[in-house]
């Protein structure tokens, strides 16, 4: 796997400082508005969602801070405030609002945030190849057989109730497992953030980085599998 080196310190500042105002051509030092002519500046499509919202690439984010920042920028970019402005500004306002909404939706949910960070850090999901959890798959497929049996027995209550009890207990076990995975993920998130905060460039840090990303990937994937079968269980037995 190749190692991307992502500097964590202020990529936005750098990027912004080098960009020019589309309107007055002066250097833009502020966040999204030109200091001189006060025109709104387009959010670069290359900007990642963390940078877009002014957060470092961490997996633990203060929800209230995130929300506050989102509302701030929402107001700043909102198309309603650009109705009397030029066409160029209206276009920027629309583009920025769309980007901001996507960024916020992605970062607000811890699981989606982690999926997104994996994409940024390791390319596509496929980059981190882990062997499929064969035992979990067998379990899921077996459970699905039982679910089908239960559905088929729909009108015969005497066949239904033992199956129902079995499915109910499976459901409890799987829901517990999903919670366990989420706890593990929380722990890995903290480990990731601590590693980033230390910002070391040693081999050891790189190995640690890959280990954490791989484990996050594994837990996220397995959680999705478990979550799917749980929701199937819930919708079938109610």
């Amino acid at each position, binding site marked *: 796997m190749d190692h991307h080196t992502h500097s964590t310190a202020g990529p936005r500042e750098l990027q912004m400082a080098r960009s020019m105002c589309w309107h007055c051509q002066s250097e833009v030092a502020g966040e999204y508005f030109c200091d001189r002519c006060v025109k709104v500046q387009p959010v670069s499509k290359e900007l990642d969602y963390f940078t877009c919202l002014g957060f470092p690439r961490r997996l633990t984010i203060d929800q209230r801070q995130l929300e506050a920042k989102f509302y701030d920028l929402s107001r700043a970019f909102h198309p309603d405030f650009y109705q009397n402005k030029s066409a160029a500004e209206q276009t920027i306002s629309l583009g920025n609002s769309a980007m901001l909404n996507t960024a916020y939706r992605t970062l607000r949910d811890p699981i989606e945030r982690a999926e997104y960070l994996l994409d940024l850090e390791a390319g596509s*999901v496929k980059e981190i190849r882990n062997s*499929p*959890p*064969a035992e979990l*798959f*067998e379990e*899921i*497929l077996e459970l*699905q*057989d039982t679910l089908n049996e239960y559905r088929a027995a729909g009108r015969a209550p005497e066949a239904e109730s033992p199956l129902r009890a079995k499915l109910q207990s499976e459901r409890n076990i799987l829901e517990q497992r999903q919670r366990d995975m989420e706890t593990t993920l929380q722990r890995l998130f903290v480990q990731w953030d601590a590693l980033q905060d230390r910002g070391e460039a040693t081999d050891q840090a790189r190995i640690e980085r890959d280990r954490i990303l791989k484990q996050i*990937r594994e837990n*996220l*994937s397995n959680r*999705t*599998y478990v*979550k*799917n*079968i749980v929701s*199937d269980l819930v919708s079938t037995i109610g």
Partner: protein
Amino acid sequence: MAYSDKVVDHFNNPRNMGSFKKDEEGVGTGMVGAPECGDVMKLQIKVQNDTIVDAKFKTFGCGSAIASSSLATEWLKGKTIEEAQKIKNTDIVQELNLPPVKIHCSVLAEDAIKAALADYQKKADGTLTNAK
């Protein structure tokens, strides 16, 4: 979004649903999953004299994933190992008329075929039974 008639047909009447015993002679098992959507697919082949004489699948996932694996087992039957290697996800997309958002289901089916073939090969190399 509506499923194509062929997908609906495979979904309602899946071909070759079920499984073989994993350790049975000549059986190759492919077990794959799509972490993005949580679909799980198990595809098995039974090989005699280099030809796939039977195939079975079990899939936990959406209609397109079920149809893709059902179609795959239909296609596998009667093919030689070499011919089976050539099945591509794009063939499945075409046959089932899968929309772009469902292409990953056909990729999963291709992965399952490849995994089953590899598993068979591994077992065959290990035992040296199964002449040729």
